[in-house]
């Protein structure tokens, strides 16, 4: 095996491992509910209209705009208040008017509903507000 081939093999190995590492979290994304398409993470950018800090899971409502400029009303399922508390979030995490960018798994059935549970990647008014992992099983998801 000459040097060039060895280089390609090693590079291939690195790429493969990189993909493998990147897929570790994805493989774990299976427990929150079969209603959501965990293969299609979707970034929503919009304005908060309401945040409900309730069991079994908190609910975030926001208005986004589609490519035609039409307003779309989204609902986002989040974690339970107990788990979110342990992640450092509070019932005042979002307030109406906040500009947010949030990555959700959208409903498979076509509703404008998504889930953002566990490590919920989110910015609020331009600041990263992604929480730390919850202690305990599964990052703490509760039914």
């Amino acid at each position, binding site marked *: 095996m000459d*040097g060039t081939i*060895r*280089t390609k093999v*090693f*590079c291939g*190995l*690195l790429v493969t*491992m*990189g993909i*493998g590492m990147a897929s*570790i*979290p994805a493989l*774990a*994304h*299976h*427990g*929150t*509910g*079969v*209603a*959501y398409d*965990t293969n299609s993470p979707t970034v929503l950018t919009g304005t908060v209209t309401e945040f*409900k800090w*309730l*069991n*079994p*899971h908190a*609910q975030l409502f926001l208005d986004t705009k589609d490519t035609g400029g039409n307003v779309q*009303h*989204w*609902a986002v*399922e989040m974690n339970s*208040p*107990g788990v979110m*508390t*342990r992640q450092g979030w509070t019932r005042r995490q979002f307030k109406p008017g906040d500009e947010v960018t949030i990555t959700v*798994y*959208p*409903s498979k*059935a*076509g*509703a*404008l*509903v*998504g*889930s*953002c*549970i*566990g*490590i919920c990647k989110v910015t609020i008014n331009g600041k990263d507000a992604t929480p730390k*992992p*919850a*202690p*305990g*099983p*599964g*990052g703490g*998801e*509760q*039914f």
Partner: protein
Amino acid sequence: MRNRAIASLATVVLVSVVLLPAALAQTAPPQESGQGQGRGGRRANAIPPPGPPHDPHDLSGTWMQFGPGLGGGGGGHPQTGSEWSTEPLPLTPAGLAKLNGNHPGKGPRAGVPAKGNDPLSDANVPGLLRTLVYGRPFQFLPTEDKIVQIFEWFRIWREIWTDGRKMPEDPDPRFYGYSVSKWDGDTLVVETAGLDPRLWGDEWGMPFSEEMRLEERWRRVDRDNLQLTITFTDPQMYTKPWTSEMKRFRLQKKGMPDAEMLEVIFTPMDEQDFDKNIRNPSSLGVPGPKSGVR
């Protein structure tokens, strides 16, 4: 030279990818992360490290489950599996029929939650078995004649009698059963009966009947680690007694996030609100009061 550098880098990556996670799995605190990961993650079955001196007959403290056996995802689990065991359940025909009549939103038989019949979706209490297998904190409070076990999930408790009393002949069905106990060496052996069979034994719809008897074996192996196995005996649902895999719990010391139990109560008004806004639209593709459809 360049190739050597790449080879070295590849070796480092290989070690990082293959060996480091395994090493971490043996030593990491019981935490997981990941969006939507839920309770399906399966973590290393770490051997508890030797702890400081402790009284093995004192179970007091706040405990949190860790380790393998936490269900929820179901990949690779048998259709007749349970969060209590990695083995298929030894179901009788009646047991299989009841299992198939339970339609969960989680596990290997999961369907969309809005079309399921999980009692919890209507804000019914989870009951003893489901609470024990679910990974939320609980606390043991020993008293003179009983140990009170209080659970964060639904903010509820049960009594484990330690005063030598016998199990009643025909205990009434209760959501959290009737429990008497004795010590077998350093293991607290708890006999539990009188479990209301309308509930499920786990989140996957594990069935049980009013004949279900549990032998819970709790053992505090050191100050920080507690173990539980349960033997299930229920001739209506199972062809033979079967024993759970070992569930492991770690002491939540002051300052740890789960040391202080929160109020986690599901109420009908909250469940209905969640159904209307989230569960039904996401499952059925119908618009919610505050969401549309694509």
